[in-house]
């Protein structure tokens, strides 16, 4: 327990800015999860591993000498096809099944992904250097890496772009129709199979963007996927499916929580704090709903 943060308010500014910028990134991943959860009714435990895979794509670019920031364009394109292939291979067999089946199946996928990434990229913690420098604020007492600002900016652009795409395009309309009622959409001529594949692909592409941004702002490691899954799951259950402003807000809230937990409890408890927060949120919602004799659905 370290209460230094309350004695030095400037640290609080630092933590808040860090948290908000990080939270926007989390919100992007959560948006992908909300999309596929809403449309396909699947909880994807491999979400975080898709993120990390996207990050490694950007890192590979960095290794061959291309600036990793280009990863935010290349990574989603590759990841779209990864997601599409994953759908055709496994996910299409679990779409209409019990949610627990999809959880376990994607858990299996997550393990495969982790191990394959471990083989290909090694078990070291890596980071792609963007060399964007640092912004100093308040007499140099608050430092903000420019890469974080860049990451938040790109996340917002992608999120807005996707919202417009979902509203305007034909595929977007088909996706929304399928989310509302898959059977009715099918009757009206929507090829739901294609819509599902595209949704999963878009989700993976969003993960790819987020991963590329994580590769320049944070660190990559083959086994850190699960915390990202849990974060996005948490954001989605707090914000609800398909409520984008709420997703952004709760993403930032989570980012803030994490940074403060990091300062107060110590870095070793950071991931533990995230998982405990998940438990607390679920339990809180359960008690709130049980007053109305309902439960989380």
């Amino acid at each position, binding site marked *: 327990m370290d209460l230094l943060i309350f004695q030095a308010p400037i640290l609080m500014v630092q933590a808040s800015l860090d948290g908000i910028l990080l939270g926007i990134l989390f919100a992007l991943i959560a948006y992908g999860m909300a999309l596929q959860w809403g449309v396909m009714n699947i*909880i994807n435990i491999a979400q975080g591993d898709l993120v990390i895979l996207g990050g490694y794509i950007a890192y590979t670019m960095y290794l061959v000498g291309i600036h990793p920031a280009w990863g935010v364009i290349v990574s989603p394109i590759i990841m779209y096809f990864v997601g599409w292939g994953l759908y055709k291979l*496994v996910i299409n*067999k*679990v779409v209409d*099944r*019990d*949610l*627990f*089946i999809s*959880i*376990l*199946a994607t*858990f*299996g*996928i*997550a*393990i*495969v*992904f*982790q*191990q*394959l990434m471990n*083989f290909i990229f090694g078990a070291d913690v890596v980071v792609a250097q963007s060399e964007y420098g640092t912004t100093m604020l308040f007499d140099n007492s608050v430092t903000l890496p420019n890469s974080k600002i860049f990451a938040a900016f790109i996340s917002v652009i992608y999120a807005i772009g996707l919202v417009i795409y979902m509203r305007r395009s034909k595929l977007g309309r088909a996706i929304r129709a399928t989310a509302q009622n898959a059977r009715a959409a099918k009757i009206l001529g929507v090829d739901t199979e294609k819509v599902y594949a595209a949704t999963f692909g878009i989700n993976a592409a969003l993960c790819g963007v987020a991963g590329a941004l994580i590769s320049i702002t944070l660190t990559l490691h083959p086994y850190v996927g*699960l915390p990202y899954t*849990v974060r996005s*799951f948490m954001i989605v*259950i707090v914000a609800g499916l398909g409520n984008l402003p709420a997703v952004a807000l709760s993403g930032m809230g989570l980012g803030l929580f994490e940074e403060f937990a990091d300062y107060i409890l*110590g870095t*070793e*408890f950071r*991931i*533990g704090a995230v*998982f*405990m927060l*998940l*438990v607390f949120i*679920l*339990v809180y919602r*359960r*008690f709130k709903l*049980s007053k109305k004799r309902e*439960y*989380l*659905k």
Partner: protein
Amino acid sequence: MNAVKQKDLILYSGLIILGLAAPFLFSAFKVQLTYLCVLIVLAMTWNLQGGEMGYNSFGNILFYGLGMYLTASVQVGMFFPLAEWTESGGEKTFVHTTAQYFQGIGVGLLVAAIVPTIVAGAIGYAILGLRGHYFAICTLGLGIAAGEIAGGIEIIGAGQGFTTPPFPAEIVDPEARGQFFYFLSFLVLVLAFVFVKYIYGSRFRLILNAIRDNEDKAEAMGIQTMKYKIVGWMCSAFFCGLAGGIMGGLIGYIDSTDVAFDGREMGVFMVLMAILGGKGTLWGPVIGATLFHFFKEGLWTFILGWQYVALGVLIVVIVVYFPEGLMGWLREKYPDRFGEVIDEKDRKAQVEIK
């Protein structure tokens, strides 16, 4: 009826004799056999609430890890200062005498069984109010959080791990350690089996099944579902704690995320084994665990390095293609063996509706 009973009697006595003779017959595989016993216990007790109650928990690893840490801590803490033990890595500084070792592990296992049960009871009311996948994700979070938090606590070794007391050096027989842990785990296995078998014949199982099939209706029928759910979870926790305690002593070293709260291995294994054998059956988890263990030990060495890939693929294949498991498949094939009477006309009519 009597003939059936007699058949059962022969089966069970045969299995018990086999179990007692196994460490002498296959004395090179004692550690593997101990693992097998523990895996069966875990699968069987997971099945109690995963299969019977319909509450698919990823978090039973919490009780397993808790049991492991508790046994080791009690075993050390009863005779020596715990903090100094973990600081020095637990080697050479303090040595348990034979009597101390066995006293310690006895009390430790007792604590390891009781405390997780109490914990399950305490958090049960909050957690078991969640249903379906929310429960699954919540327990997954609990298990991982426990591992992360245990990895930050200094007194139980934090990130560097906790060496459990070595087997007393005064016992010179090299076979003794393996035999001790094997018989300990076999005892727990027999206890667990008798307990689960008893539950399978009781009203309690019917209540659990009612909760699985439709909780709201079960509640409407006047069953206090919450009470039974908590008791069901506590039963699992009891045996998970014991299994964890034994494994801690057997492995000899506890790491917070790789050994104790090992959601990536044990936590998934117990779910997988129960599903492989068939959820909601008495023998399913036993067969599933045995098959899985043979598969794992037989194949792991040939595909060294690729075992996790194989594990992941295995999970996907089992879950996607055999969600009913082996017993479910057999049941589909030979329904009359399972005491189900099927009206052929009725069955055909149902197929046509589909």
